[in-house]
């Protein structure tokens, strides 16, 4: 499912709204979620899961082409942990 398919599904669920509202709502939700992570905030959606940043310590990597050592600085990366309901529904589906 893509973003535009998600928007279409939501527009169908809310026939009283104009199609543009579903489009705007999805973009607004995703922007708010991205902005929260960029601020370093967590996102907790009960029954769905949580998003947080994980720390990656600095390390010495290698340029795969030249084999030369390069130092890779520490960084923070987004991480998602599925919530109980999502985990169970996905697993029971097999």
């Amino acid at each position, binding site marked *: 499912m893509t973003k535009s398919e998600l928007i279409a599904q939501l527009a169908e669920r809310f026939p009283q709204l104009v199609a543009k509202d579903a489009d705007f709502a999805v973009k607004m939700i995703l922007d708010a979620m991205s902005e929260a992570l960029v601020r370093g905030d967590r996102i*907790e959606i009960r029954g769905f899961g949580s998003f947080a940043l994980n720390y990656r310590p600095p390390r010495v990597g290698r340029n795969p082409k030249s084999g030369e050592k390069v130092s890779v600085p520490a960084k*923070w990366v987004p991480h998602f942990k599925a919530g109980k309901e999502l985990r169970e529904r*996905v697993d029971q589906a097999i």
Partner: protein
Amino acid sequence: MTLTKAELADLLFERVGLNKREAKDMVEAFFEEIRNALETGDGVKLSGFGNFQLRDKPQRPGRNPKTGQEIPITARRVVTFHASQKLKSDVELAFDGTTA
């Protein structure tokens, strides 16, 4: 600070002009549609944010850490999330090696 469904609903009320009921229902439906897709075995691609994918894990041997008894960990399907290149680089730039 933690972002929750309540804050997302407030945002839709204030900025999209949905009424309070619609805003709350829209946030709930947003996550429910994603859960539905994943439940039916369909991955979800949200460009600019990231992708939710499904992985089938085979059964593997496990152990009860208390008793040391061997018990198999059954085969299962799990959800993984891969942040988009944009989200990853926005996060990296915002912290630039400093504490979150």
